[in-house]
């Protein structure tokens, strides 16, 4: 009934030539690396967006307006990402863009979005995306820097002062490696061994042996995503290294425990999100409801374990649709203002509060230090 009335009102407005663009179907664009080297991250992101749009439209859309998702696969190629961003804006006339699985793709999209003054919510980690703050660019994942800080905080608590690092040479691993080296001194920690591996490498025992033999090393940190960290974890056990191993949020998914094998993964710590420990959250935890709902829906639909990266896409979509709904308009400018005014919005990654100076909207508290015990995630603090 309400719908018919809006429709009638709409028709009237159109007749009067006063229909704002907002009243048509709301078109949201996305450029994601659903294939290519970052497919491991991008695939769940794409599936999450499709799932959420379906759910939202089944509920009647945003205030009665259906949402249409225009999703492109940039294959992780920044040049393609830029082309698709141009296409989304010029050709598909979307009101906002979600995407950029990798930092390179995000940096390419943000230039286009910024020029066209269309809001863009990035799913990549690097701090450069939101620093300096650009009016139309936001992001949902924690920065790599924050992941490093969270890990070093924990190391400091355990009294470690000398650590080894083994990083992937892909964008994710290399970026986090650089950020970690940048902040490590603040925690009185010294990196005594700094090794890398290629994302396609099959054996990292040579690097790990070198790290083990570095003098005084007390713990090891492995920034990376994909199969690399699983192989590192297995090799770690093969070499019987008895130092604590830290992984990054790049592998925060049950898939990691499966691939590394529960015995090898035992005791591994990483900074993760509420998503992985949904059942351990307190009943009154503000994130509990949304985390459980997303996990169940995702795992039901895709039959694959939920992970942090799909969660980033979930949160981007949530922030965007929440902003459109609050703005009562689907004009890019209004959406931007509404996103910036987001406050206390609970997502899977954390509770988002944006401001004119802060386009990330999360702090360290959103990260939870997790430890794998008996093949399952547990909360350390």
């Amino acid at each position, binding site marked *: 009934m309400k719908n018919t009335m809006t429709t009638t009102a709409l028709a009237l407005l159109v007749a009067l030539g006063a229909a704002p663009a907002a009243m048509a179907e709301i078109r949201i664009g996305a450029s994601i690396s659903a294939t290519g080297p970052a497919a491991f991250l991008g695939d769940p992101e794409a599936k999450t967006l499709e799932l959420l749009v379906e759910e939202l439209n089944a509920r009647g859309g945003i205030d009665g307006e259906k949402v249409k998702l225009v999703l492109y696969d940039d294959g992780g190629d920044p040049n393609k990402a830029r082309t698709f961003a141009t296409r989304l804006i010029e050709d598909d006339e979307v009101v906002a863009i979600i995407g950029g699985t990798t930092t390179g793709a995000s940096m390419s999209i943000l230039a286009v979005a910024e020029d066209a003054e269309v809001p863009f919510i990035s799913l990549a980690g690097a701090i450069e995306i939101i620093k300096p703050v650009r009016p139309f660019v936001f992001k949902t994942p924690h920065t790599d820097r924050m992941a490093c800080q969270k890990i070093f905080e924990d190391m400091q608590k355990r009294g470690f002062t000398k650590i080894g690092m083994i990083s992937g040479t892909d964008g994710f691993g290399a970026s986090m490696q650089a950020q970690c080296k940048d902040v490590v001194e603040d925690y009185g920690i010294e990196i005594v061994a700094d090794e890398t591996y290629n994302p396609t490498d*099959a*054996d990292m025992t040579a*690097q790990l042996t*070198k790290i083990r033999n570095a003098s005084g090393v007390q713990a090891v940190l492995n920034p990376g995503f*994909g199969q690399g960290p699983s192989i590192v974890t297995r090799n770690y056990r093969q070499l019987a290294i008895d130092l604590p191993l830290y992984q990054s949020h790049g592998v925060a998914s049950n898939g990691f425990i499966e691939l590394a094998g529960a015995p090898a993964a035992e005791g591994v710590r990483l900074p993760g999100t509420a998503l992985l420990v949904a059942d351990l959250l307190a009943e009154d935890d503000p994130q509990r409801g949304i985390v459980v709902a997303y996990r169940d829906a995702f795992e039901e639909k895709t039959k694959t374990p939920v992970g942090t990266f799909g969660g980033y896409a979930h949160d981007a979509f949530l922030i965007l649709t929440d902003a459109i709904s609050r703005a009562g308009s689907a004009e890019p400018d209004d959406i931007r203002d509404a996103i910036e005014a987001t406050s206390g919005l609970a997502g899977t990654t954390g509770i988002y509060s944006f401001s004119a100076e802060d386009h990330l909207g999360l702090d360290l508290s959103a990260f939870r230090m997790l430890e794998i015990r008996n093949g399952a995630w547990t909360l350390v603090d």
Partner: protein
Amino acid sequence: MSELLQFLFSGVTVGAVYALVALGFTIIYNASDVVNFAQGEFVMLGGMITWFAHQAGIPLPVAAFLAISITAAIGVAMNKLAIEPARGAPIVSLIIITIGASIFLQGAAQLVFDKQIHDFPAFSGDAPIRVGGATILPQSLWVIGGALAVFVGLWIFFTRTLLGRAVLATSNNRLAAQLVGINTNFVMTLSFALSAGIGALAGVLATPITLTAYNVGIAFALKGFAGAMLGGMGNPKGALVGGFLIGLIEALTAGYLSSQYKDAAAFVVILLVLFVRPQGLFGRKSTDRV
């Protein structure tokens, strides 16, 4: 000392995978003068099909056998549909055809299976074997054993059997081979089946160590290609040595120099070897075809 031993173990584990891929390159090259850049996809298919069948409840050995057979059939199909019709095309066209096949197989794999990373259990458990302070996984021994067994098998095949000699004759001079009554089409079919099967075997043996996904093929193809060229294309001995050498160079560079540039070291060595011996370590001196 134990450090060096560990680096060597790491090198031969990885090198054995490269050697298996390189051996696959060699067989097809011998029969058809084609370097098959889709060789890496055979490795991927070996791993992915085995995983898929295994998680569907089929026992591992049966799943592995299925994977090798199916991949061999795909190899034969590739020969019939893409390589034979292009007979006599210039090298650059053949490169594009086989890379096209590689992209096609990847595209098919992500549709038929998925884009996640998978593995299946190691054949003889995960308990590492300790030797002189270093460790090696039982699965590594399977891979190394596999590479050596395939090499010996090929060597016997090519030198001691009539069929094997027919393959070599075909590679040396197709027309002459036909004239003496060798069914060169059958030789081609056999070579592709064998090569794809060996690639799949590499995938079956290596997946418990390297894990597998729809897009792992290209890295195997590049390293295997490099190994085969280093050893000298067309020579099984060259493929074996070249593959192991690349693995060892990578591991030793990672251990003693810089893990960041370990792949660079492998390619620098290849460039240097080719400057001195343009036909690779064990390659035949090529004769120009005018």
